[in-house]
């Protein structure tokens, strides 16, 4: 199943383009599932109808749903909640247990778990995801790494500790503090699911991100950084969609100066995003409902199939270079000073500004020291000794 993630700064038009992409793909006879992963759901607002947590057909060939994180948690992790509730009982603060579980990034990740479920049905060819604004999306991508580390280093110890502590705590009537075995099983299950999601996300042959931007300086600046971070987390971006370009008939009058600024921003978008570009004009009205958004899809994609992978890339890859294994990572628009590379055990740690990524190394270079790391034309090259 093809997975397309629509992301970008808040307010740029992600939701409209997610719906347009879904409708465009359906017009090419794909069976499409449209998923909203933005906690501030606006699919319903853009469609002018209610879309809820249950899948609902919104157009020929398109089924949509919004992921409600509290419900998801209710559904799958009652065990984790039970533990937290146990802690809270004396304070009669039941609702809180749910709030507590909403870790940054977890909420978005829950939505992606839904992608897995869509795939499992076998009924869909394409899944279009209306993601949260970039900041939250990047937090989500960071989560699987953090969880993996937790599982590898900490989890067994915690579990052993819990077994040791439980009889003791029961004696002092504080048993609720030590989680039951089921709690750990629930965490393990979560880990398995997150791993699956990670596999889907990093498979550049079927999963790609699309960045929606407006021709405005602050938007372009922020999106440039997101582009590099997506790549750092191993997610391929196959297109950028420039939304709300002033059309020629509106560029001469009152908004002439805006039009001029836009031309400058278009140049900078061209230079910053060396990937296929699509454009959508500013419409002199609101786009709302199926008909409007299907029209948007035609304006953006013409005859092309929006489900196509417009560019095949593998943002992080291994290749042989002079007989040695070399790791390459695309980090467009990032300068040497912003990157830090170290190894730890079987992982390579790449830190870009305040984001860091752990890349599990293959056996051939695992445990080897870094011989050389350099940045060449937006590509980080790491050679091992």
């Amino acid at each position, binding site marked *: 199943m093809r997975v397309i993630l629509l992301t970008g*700064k*808040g*307010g*740029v038009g992600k*939701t409209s383009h997610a719906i347009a992409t879904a409708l465009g793909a359906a017009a090419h006879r794909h069976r499409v599932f449209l998923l909203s992963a933005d*906690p*501030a759901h*606006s699919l319903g*607002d*853009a469609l*002018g109808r209610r879309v809820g947590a249950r899948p609902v057909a919104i157009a020929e060939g398109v089924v949509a749903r919004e992921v409600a994180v*509290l419900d998801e948690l209710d559904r799958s992790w009652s065990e984790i909640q039970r533990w*937290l509730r146990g*802690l809270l009982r004396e*304070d009669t*603060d*039941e*609702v*809180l247990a*749910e*709030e*507590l579980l*909403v*870790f*940054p990034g977890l909420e978005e990740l829950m939505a992606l778990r839904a992608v897995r479920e869509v795939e499992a049905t076998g009924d869909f060819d394409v899944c279009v995801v209306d993601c949260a*604004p970039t*900041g939250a999306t990047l937090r989500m991508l*960071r989560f699987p790494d*953090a969880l993996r*580390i*937790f599982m590898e*280093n*900490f989890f067994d*110890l915690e579990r052993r*500790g819990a077994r*040791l*502590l439980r009889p*003791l*705590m029961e004696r002092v009537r504080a048993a609720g*503090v030590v989680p039951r075995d089921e709690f750990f099983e629930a965490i393990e299950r979560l880990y398995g699911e997150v791993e699956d999601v990670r596999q889907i996300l990093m498979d550049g042959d079927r999963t790609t991100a699309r960045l929606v931007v*407006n021709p405005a300086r*602050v*938007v372009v600046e922020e999106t440039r950084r997101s582009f590099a971070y997506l790549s750092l987390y191993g997610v391929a971006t196959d297109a950028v969609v420039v939304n709300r370009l002033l059309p020629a*008939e*509106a560029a001469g*009058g*009152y*908004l002439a*100066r*805006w039009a001029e600024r836009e031309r400058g921003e278009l140049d900078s978008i061209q230079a910053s995003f060396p990937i296929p570009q699509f454009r959508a004009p500013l419409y*002199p*009205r*609101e786009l*709302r409902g199926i008909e409007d958004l299907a029209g948007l899809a035609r304006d953006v994609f013409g005859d092309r199939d929006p489900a196509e992978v417009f560019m095949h890339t593998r943002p992080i890859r291994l290749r042989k270079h002079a007989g040695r294994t070399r790791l390459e990572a695309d980090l467009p628009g990032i300068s040497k000073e912003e990157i830090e590379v170290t190894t*730890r*055990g079987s992982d390579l*740690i790449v830190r870009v500004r*305040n984001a*860091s990524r*752990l890349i599990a190394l293959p056996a051939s270079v695992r445990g080897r020291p870094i011989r050389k790391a350099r940045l060449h034309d937006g590509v980080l090259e790491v050679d091992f000794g």
Partner: protein
Amino acid sequence: MRVVLYTGKGGVGKTTTAAATAVHAARSGRSTLVASADSAHSLGDVLERRLGPRPSHLAPNLDALEVDTPSETQRHWGAVRDYLISLLRYQGIEEVVAEELALLPGAEEITTLLAVEAYAREGGYDFAVVDCAPTDSALRLLTLPEVARGAFRVLLRVQGALASIVTPLARNLIPVPLPESEVFRDAEHLLFRKLRRLRDFVGDRRTSVRLVVTPERMVIDEARRAHTDLALFELPCDAVVMNRLLPPAAAEEDFFRDWARLQLERLVEVEELFAPLPVLTAPLQDDEVTGLDRLAEHADRLFGAIEPDAVLSTAPRIRFEAEDGGYRVEVPLPHAGSGDLDVAKIDDELVIGTGTRRRSLLLPRRIAHLELSQAKLGGDLLVVHFTAAPGGR
């Protein structure tokens, strides 16, 4: 001190509006602080000045800052965090990773708000204007002081149990560093003093939220939901700001004519929807609004004769009232649909969910022992009736 927090969907012009409000107030003689609490800061760009994490003086009566969330988190939450990091590092986890893992949910939001509150209070300003993150994170930020109270209580219980009961015995059993008393001191301090202060700051009668919108359906829809959720947590809104209305000069152009008409319909609709909140309007400018002078002009158009620091409307609060055979609780919930509402009494709390957010309200003792007999939404008011349990006291 008067406090105004601006929020709204991404890209609607929150930062420009916050900066314009502050410049206008400063020029009319109020000593003013404008602070950006959005981690993607653009306040400095709008003011055309490089801003730091502490107030910098920009003009007479005008200071500005952009909160440095990572270092504020360290300042307020340092000992607890350091402990978590040491615990993780002890497991052989790299510092970089430990730092990420030790980020507690909500800790960043809390410390951002703490920083704004602290600088505003220390500076003795008349007026603090806060440029918040987009609606969803802003709501998280504003409702957290209440939610976090419970979260930290849990943390304390866990750690307290570990330290007082288990520590002496467990030192031999589990090879992990155990928290020092300093960790508890920090957590307690945060729990009992700082959070209370935040609650006071956000809940003060002189603190209001202003919702920023553009004349677009999706933006308005999101603002409506935010208005409901803010009311649920008794965070009063005192105005709506509508940005980017096409001015007559543009509306005359062919391309914009129908659009301008549609915008006016949206404006009327917003005025009706959000009444009695006043709707302040600002035109789409012919160029970027940056720098103090252009911001002052922008504020003139936005506020006209209105004082930017005035409380422009007062919101009703939750009321408890005795009625025949029991009590009624009135919860103002503008724009709420009964389909999304979830009302329940759990032990001594009234739990209300709006689909996106839930609040648990501690009931006064005289109501806590009664039973929830009926909950009804009429207009913008949720009325919950409590009567004595059959066979109860």
